[in-house]
């Protein structure tokens, strides 16, 4: 168990000292506190695997330092870092029983046999694997195998962090939530630092207390799932988190608000920040927060209803604002206007972005 | 031009009867010798449009002269001549499979003469005109015998093979070494007349550098590798003990009962001596094939060797380190000879020697051949009196004296620059074998391959220490009885009778 600290860590697969733009992982600093549940989230090719490999020691970063509990491990090999990892595809020692699989890391460290038995029992109990300890590991289901992979990390007392690399890829969709729960339970119970890497926002947000969203080698935002959802710091996060994605609309500064096309959106609190910001401005609002009605009113924007997707429990309403598409999510049962409608964008759920970065209403 | 003049002069000188013969010196011969298949006679024939298929041994031994004369034959007659070369070990099956399956694959075959017992059914008899040719008349009786089964000549003699003793003259005539030997053993160092003497001398000269070249030398190089040749070396070693000059009626079998004699005490003694001899063979000597034996003795590694001519010829090669340092002598014999009639060992004051007219290269024409005329002409041409002297001079050809006029020391001294004494010993040894009345021939019966293979296997087991000599040969004898039974006692006996007739000088 350890606190993981990254100091100005960046990586470039080409020769060191190349231009910063070529970095597969842009330099950044961050701390993962001991015992937390963290996630690295991003589309494929965003650099999260590089990030993961830097922590596990498979990749030595071009610049920056990695500290475990203050100890510089940047130059250490994987085996010396006391890291445990669960891979995308279950990795088990298929010639061994479940017990021997779990005991393997301990045997590698010459732990006493009675101690091994005790620890394996303990972990097996935690993972509900007791009944299959004597079975050959290869006969187990995919999710049990993933638990074994995890268990091999848990039996070790010296583990600094457990890295989970898309661990649910091969799990049957109906079983996924059980395993998610197990992972959370273990994190809560053992207070192991766990880092979960995935491209799936649901996985990340379900598991982690703090999620780092990455794109194109850059960490875009680190925050709790709720923060990411409600207050995306970057248009990418707004787009990437949540489904359907956040509406991102180009806008210009106006008195006491912004202009979308030629329609004014009153945003008194944000107007000041928007006025001083450099770069292209965009307004972001999640479909959930778009308010729709059939009557015009103050600050309401007139739109055309282009299409309604009935998704059973709710409707996604596609609105046309002078050629810009806006989505609104409306629960079934709420009345829907016909053809023409008016929308309001509540300020507390609306964000203004300059060059993609969210403007803080305070500044 | 000068060469031409000399050749012409020679021809004019040596064949005064001939009127301005055509010049065939481009074929490498000294001169054409008139005869049934002289260059001129063959040149006169026209076989164009026909193909002659020949199977022969691998290059160079016998394979190279076959191909050489085939090429010449083709050029002279216009025939297309195709030659295939096969390692010795595969020759039998390569010839036999087409025979047995009725496929006419080859017109002419060169092969080991002992297979006559198996091949005879498939061979064409040599036509009378060849048998009566001048060249054939000169072939020594031994090789006429070898080519003949019963009354019929079915193989065409083209080579003479025999086993004899080769030794290092520079050792046996070295006063210093003679003295050393006498000091050690109390006996004079001389050419061994018995296998016991052979052993004693070989043992003395084993494992130390007696020729001063910095390499160790050894006693004896022999053919021991369990292949198709080893049994011959063994028979050479056995003959003196087991071939009693006065006991007739079979060496391998008792002709009357067809009981195998291979496990009789004479044979066992021979095998025991063979086993003992491994002690003074060079490293790896107990897996030497003929090629190794040739390199070993021919390369100056060992004092003694026996078996075919090749090692001797190798030693006498122009660039050889031991050229003219070797001599030939008859195979050793024995004072003690087993008499199977009385069941006792008889003592001979003069060692009993039984020359083993071992099988060698012979040739034949397939009965199924559609080109018998051409085939016999080829063989006749191959062995004409111009070609044979030429071939005899080229060591790697493996063609050895088989006509009475080859036994002329002058030929070897003049043509090949041999030392007179060496040539003398060689010629005397060879011709002496023809005069013997106590010869041993090969087991020229059907299934000889089975008999010899089983003999070699048994001997080999004893040599390797897997069995004692007696056990091994008892095993061979049992096996032989079974083979006789399988092939048919009468059939084997009929064939064997021909061999015994030769051995017992009944012809």
């Amino acid at each position: 168990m350890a606190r993981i600290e990254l100091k100005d860590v960046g990586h470039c697969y080409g020769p060191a000292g190349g231009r910063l733009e070529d970095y597969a992982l842009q330099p950044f600093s961050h701390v993962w506190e001991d015992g937390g549940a963290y996630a690295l989230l991003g589309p494929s090719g965003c650099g999260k695997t590089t990030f993961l490999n830097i922590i596990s020691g498979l990749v030595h970063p071009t610049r920056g330092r990695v500290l475990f509990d203050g100890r510089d491990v940047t130059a250490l090999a994987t085996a010396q870092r006391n890291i445990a990892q669960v891979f995308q595809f279950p990795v088990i020692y298929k010639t061994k029983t479940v017990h021997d699989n779990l005991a393997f890391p301990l045997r590698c460290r010459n732990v006493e046999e009675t101690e091994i038995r005790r620890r394996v029992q303990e972990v097996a109990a935690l993972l509900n694997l007791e009944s299959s300890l004597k079975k050959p590991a290869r006969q187990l289901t995919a999710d049990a195998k993933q638990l074994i992979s995890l268990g091999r990390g848990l039996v070790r007392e010296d583990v600094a962090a457990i890295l989970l690399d898309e661990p649910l890829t091969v799990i049957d969709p109906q079983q996924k939530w059980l395993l998610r729960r197990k992972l959370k339970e273990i994190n809560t119970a053992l207070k192991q630092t766990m880092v979960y890497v995935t491209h799936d926002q649901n996985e990340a947000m379900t598991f982690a207390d703090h999620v780092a969203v990455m794109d194109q080698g850059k960490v875009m935002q680190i925050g709790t799932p709720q923060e990411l959802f409600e207050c995306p710091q970057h248009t990418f996060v707004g787009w990437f988190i949540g489904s359907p994605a956040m509406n991102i609309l180009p806008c210009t500064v106006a008195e006491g608000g912004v202009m979308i096309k030629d329609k004014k959106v009153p945003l008194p609190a944000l107007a000041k920040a928007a006025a001083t910001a450099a770069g292209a401005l965009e307004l972001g609002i999640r479909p959930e927060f778009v308010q729709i009605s059939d009557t015009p009113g103050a600050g309401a924007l007139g739109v055309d209803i282009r299409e309604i997707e009935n998704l059973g429990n709710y409707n996604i309403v596609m609105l046309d604002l002078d050629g810009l598409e806006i989505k609104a999510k409306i629960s079934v049962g709420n009345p829907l206007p016909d053809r023409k409608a008016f929308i309001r964008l509540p300020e507390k759920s609306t964000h203004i972005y300059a060059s993609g970065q969210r403007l803080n209403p305070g500044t | 031009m000068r060469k031409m003049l000399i050749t012409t002069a020679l021809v004019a000188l040596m064949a005064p009867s001939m009127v301005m013969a055509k010049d065939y010196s481009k074929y490498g011969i000294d001169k054409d010798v008139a005869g049934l298949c002289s260059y001129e006679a063959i040149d006169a024939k026209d076989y164009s449009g026909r193909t002659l298929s020949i199977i022969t041994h691998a290059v160079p031994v016998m394979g190279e002269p076959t191909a050489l004369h085939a090429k010449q034959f083709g050029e002279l007659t216009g025939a297309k001549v195709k030659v295939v070369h096969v390692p010795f070990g595969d020759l039998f099956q390569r010839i036999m499979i087409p025979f047995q399956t009725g496929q006419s694959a080859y017109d002419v075959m060169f092969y080991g003469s002992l297979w006559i017992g198996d091949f005879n059914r498939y061979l064409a008899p040599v036509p009378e005109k060849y048998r009566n040719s001048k060249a054939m008349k000169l072939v020594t009786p031994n090789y006429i015998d070898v080519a003949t089964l019963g009354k019929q000549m079915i193989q065409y003699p083209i080579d003479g093979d025999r086993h004899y003793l080769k030794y290092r003259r520079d050792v046996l005539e070295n006063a210093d070494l003679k003295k050393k030997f006498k000091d050690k053993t109390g006996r004079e160092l001389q050419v061994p007349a018995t296998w016991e003497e052979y052993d004693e001398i070989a043992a003395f000269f084993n494992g130390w550098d007696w020729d001063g070249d910095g390499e160790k030398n050894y006693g004896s190089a022999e053919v021991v590798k369990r292949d198709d040749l080893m049994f011959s070396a063994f028979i050479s070693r056995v003959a003196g003990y087991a071939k009693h000059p006065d006991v007739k009626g079979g060496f391998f079998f008792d002709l009357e009962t067809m009981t195998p004699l291979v496990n009789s005490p004479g044979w066992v003694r021979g095998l025991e001596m063979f086993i003992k001899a491994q002690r003074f063979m060079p490293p790896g000597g107990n897996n030497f094939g003929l090629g190794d034996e040739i390199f070993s003795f021919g390369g100056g590694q060992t004092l003694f060797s026996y078996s075919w001519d090749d090692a001797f010829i190798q030693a006498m090669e122009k660039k050889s380190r031991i050229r003219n340092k070797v001599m030939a002598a008859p195979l050793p014999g024995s004072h003690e000879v087993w008499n199977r009639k009385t069941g006792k060992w008889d003592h001979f004051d003069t060692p009993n020697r039984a020359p083993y007219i071992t099988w060698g290269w012979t040739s034949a024409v397939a009965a199924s051949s559609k080109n018998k005329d051409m085939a016999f002409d080829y063989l006749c041409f191959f062995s004409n009196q111009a070609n044979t002297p030429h071939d005899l001079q080229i060591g790697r050809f493996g063609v050895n004296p088989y006509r009475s006029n080859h036994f002329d020391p002058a030929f070897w001294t003049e043509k090949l620059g041999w030392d007179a004494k060496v040539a003398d010993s060689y010629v005397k040894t060879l011709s002496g074998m023809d005069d013997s009345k106590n010869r041993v021939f090969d087991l020229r019966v059907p299934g000889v391959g089975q008999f010899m293979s089983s003999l070699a296997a048994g001997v080999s087991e004893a040599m390797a220490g897997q069995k004692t000599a007696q056990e091994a040969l008892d095993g061979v004898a049992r096996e032989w009885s079974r083979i006789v039974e399988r092939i048919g006692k009468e059939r084997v006996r009929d064939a064997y009778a021909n061999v015994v007739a030769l051995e017992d000088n009944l012809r």
Partner: protein
Amino acid sequence: MLNLRHKYVFLLPGLLVLLAIILFPLLFTIRVSFSSWDVVMPGLDWFGGRNYTRMWADGRFWEAMQRLVMVAVSSVALQYVLGFSLALLVWRNIRMKRFFRVLFLVPMMTTPVIMTVIWRTIFHESLGPLNNFIEMLGLPAVPWLSTASTAVISLVIVEVWQWTPFMFLLLLAGLLSLPREPFQAAAIDGAGPVRTFFNVTMPLMAPISIGALIIRLIEASKIMETVYVLTAGGPGTATETASYYIYIRGLREFQIGYAAALSVTYLVLMIIALTIIAKILARIMILKD
């Protein structure tokens, strides 16, 4: 699996050609094994099972059979171990990787019957280089081909030289196709090279290993030319393997009928043995998920 009528277009040409080529020889051999075809009596008479009864009592054949098992199994095992080791050595990046890989492949490209002649000269106890080296090192010369045990060893050396590349190729290609994760997992679990090899590499390589071992066993069992050139079965019968013995009986002594009986027996025993071996190997090595 599809079940189209067109499937016959694919399998049948090959199968029929193979059957056409092989069926006659196979049936003919079985028929010949009940005849007394030999050097003096070619042809298909009816000889009953006498060839088989003779074989039953033929100690040399059964010894040769045992020897075959020994030589084939030991040389294939060595080839496997060496081929695997070499493949492991040149698997990951090393200097001169290409050079080593090409060089290691070459022996299998050579003609056994010719290379064995070269080997025989190498093993030559007084004229060959091997003993020369050994003596240069001050060690006693080895009687390579002239004692029973060394002759077998020599035979195995030649087989290993010739066919380790085959294993090497198959196993290297196999290694190159392995996923990385299991190795990372083992490193993370703290396994050293030995533990990693036995717990990760071996199990992953099991299926390909079985294929390679079976094919090599089939091929190694036919060992004949090597024996013929190197030792001709000697000294004694020390290197006489079943296939060489069949060769001796069949083509040297021309006991075609008997050799056919030996062959049929050999074939049956081999098929049974290989099936069992394949099953056992599969049980030991492949642990089905």
